[in-house]
């Protein structure tokens, strides 16, 4: 397949199919309806299953059943739908069922609007569902990266027996860019066979049970520690980020997803004006990349976090910087896009006019 | 029934019994009773059939069908 010009929502669906996903359960919600439409058409072509559920609550539970039965399974939704899925996500994490969940974020809270936003960072990185668990959260910023990360997400999910969230936004979902499906960038992993799946006992001498109930407190305690051993491994191996122009930077922009593209342009404009600006673009939001901050905190003067929200990732930036340098924030909620001119103004202000 | 047509008996796995008495109620020959002389590991008087009553058992298995805890095995 040569490079194809594709809409983000459709590219992520095609990427899933190419990763071997043959089961998709979803529910219509703007701005990701192209995913359900694409899957409805494409799944039967590859002998897979597309089922429109009666709600996101139902969809995530179908994902639980299918994932527990050993399939590569995906769902997609937007912010309000992900709120509905939180119970199911806690169960998926608790029962260690692999799956891929795509959130094409929109303005919130509540019904909000249908424009792209980044207001769900906390929801996926700090819980959302009840109990102690972590989701591996990946944030693409181009359509190609969306396709790459969706493909790898299935491998990551299977390797860790954990849900993986792809955090996109309405713009990424709707825009069109060229995608090369033949040269997907991903790590080769050693994925064990799913001997734990409920496939019907057959000749197996033990029954398989998918469960998150451990009624005896010492047993549940031990189980939580086992889950966190798994997360510790992910923290070591699944960190992803991009650093541009940071070696000599005074001011470092921090942004993810679509807004990172704007930040990149702003960085270039600022450099032309004589300001030493760099960019850290987290790609894994959990595990959050601490490394780029450790590397720059001694040389940078300040960080400016830009988000399409009231400020969520900025808290993790502050934690990573450990209050050694100031961390500023500029953001806009409600689906509004932070303006390059305002970002430049902020940079000039932080620099105090000194170039 | 001595010298009669059937020989049937019921065997109680006493430690599973919870003393609910559904078997007592179900038995058409009314030969099941709770053994007040014993307390099982759960703290209940288990169901039993006195040896002298066992020959009245017709092996209908009504008791076993009503038992919620699979206490009873019936042989005939």
């Amino acid at each position, binding site marked *: 397949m040569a490079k194809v010009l594709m809409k983000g929502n459709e590219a992520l669906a095609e990427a899933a199919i190419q990763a071997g996903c043959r*089961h998709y*359960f979803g529910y219509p919600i703007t701005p990701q309806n192209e995913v359900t439409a694409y899957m409805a058409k494409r799944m039967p072509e590859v002998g897979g*299953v597309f*089922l429109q559920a*009666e*709600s996101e*609550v*139902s*969809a995530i*539970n*179908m*994902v*639980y*059943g*299918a*994932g*527990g*039965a*050993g*399939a590569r*399974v995906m769902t997609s939704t937007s912010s309000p739908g992900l709120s509905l899925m939180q*119970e*199911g996500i806690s*169960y998926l994490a608790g*029962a260690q069922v692999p799956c891929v969940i795509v959130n094409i974020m929109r303005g919130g809270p509540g019904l909000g609007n249908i424009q792209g936003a980044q207001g769900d960072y906390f929801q996926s990185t700090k819980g959302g569902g009840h109990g102690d668990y972590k989701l591996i959260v990946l944030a693409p910023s181009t359509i190609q990266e969306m396709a790459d990360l969706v493909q790898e997400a299935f491998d990551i999910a299977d390797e860790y027996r954990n849900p993986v969230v792809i955090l996109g936004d309405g713009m990424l979902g709707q825009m069109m860019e060229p995608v090369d499906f033949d040269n997907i960038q991903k790590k080769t992993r050693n994925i064990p066979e799913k001997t734990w799946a*409920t*496939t*019907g*006992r*057959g*000749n197996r001498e033990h*029954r*398989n*049970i*998918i*469960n*998150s109930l451990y*009624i005896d407190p010492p047993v549940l305690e031990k189980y939580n520690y086992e889950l966190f051993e798994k997360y510790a491994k992910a923290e070591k191996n699944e960190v992803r980020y991009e650093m541009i122009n940071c070696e000599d930077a005074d001011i470092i922009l921090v942004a993810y997803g679509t807004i990172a593209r704007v930040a990149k342009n702003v960085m270039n404009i600022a450099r032309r004006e004589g300001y030493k600006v760099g960019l850290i673009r987290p790609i894994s939001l959990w595990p959050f990349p601490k490394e780029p901050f450790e590397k720059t905190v001694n040389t940078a003067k300040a960080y400016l976090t830009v988000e399409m929200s009231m400020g969520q990732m900025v808290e993790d930036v502050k934690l990573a910087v450990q209050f050694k340098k100031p961390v500023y924030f500029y953001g806009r909620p409600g689906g509004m896009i932070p303006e390059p001119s305002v970002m430049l103004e902020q940079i000039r202000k932080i620099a105090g006019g000194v170039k | 029934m001595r010298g009669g047509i059937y*020989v*049937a008996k019921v065997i109680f796995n006493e430690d*599973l019994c*919870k*003393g*609910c*008495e*559904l078997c007592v*109620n*179900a038995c058409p020959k009314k030969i099941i009773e709770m053994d007040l002389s014993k307390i099982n590991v759960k703290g209940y008087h288990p169901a039993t059939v006195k040896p002298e009553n066992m020959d009245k058992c017709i092996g209908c*298995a*009504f008791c076993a*069908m*009503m*038992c*919620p*805890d*699979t206490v009873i*095995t*019936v*042989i*005939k």
Partner: protein
Amino acid sequence: MAVVFQKTKGLTDTPFHYCPGCTHGIIHRLVAEVMEELDILDKAIGVAPVGCAVFAYEYFNCDMQEAAHGRAPAVATGIKRVHPDKIVFTYQGDGDLAAIGTAEIVHAAARGENITVIFVNNANYGMTGGQMAPTTLIGQETTTTPYGRKPEINGYPIRVSEMLATLDGTAYIERVAVYDVKHVMQAKKAIKNAFLAQIQKKGFAMVEVLSSCPTNWGMTPIEALNWIKDYMEPYYPLGVYKNTLEEVK
């Protein structure tokens, strides 16, 4: 001497945690016996509910998944769509199926999802201490209707079997009870039919079993069985509400 009755291979060796006289024990056994007799234990995948039967995954001798409260039909849908050749069943109580899980059961039935649902109706929420359920009778006292269920506050009980039978996707719906041996035998037949409906790929099958809850009803186990007959059966008539099977045994 031959064995006339012994514990089925469909049950594990784990003793049931249910209250003395609780009909969950009988119903579990019937489901397990049917699965053994139909020789589907090695193909079966069950979905356990939240409720007294939350530990059902310990008792049925097959692969099991534990679902969130009410979500079992959706979980079962996911499993069945991945393994259409396996036998997928859910086992749910009246809070699980008729309250929080109403959307999931209605849509699984409407889709004609080829699964078997065992619906245990004992007119209250047992596990949490006896609160009102959608199937609690008018005038029935529960911990959340201490003055008896009043229609002007809490409306009327839901007859799930009749309701689901109106959906075209359903293949077999029967309501049974387990208050005496005759009814236990009929219940077993119904459960067998509900699994046959899946084997024959007819669509959605459900057996609603009128059951007792001696502990929360405040009765002895035998009194509780009589209460099913005297009070529940008049409101929830027994019988077959839908049948598209090729041959009824």
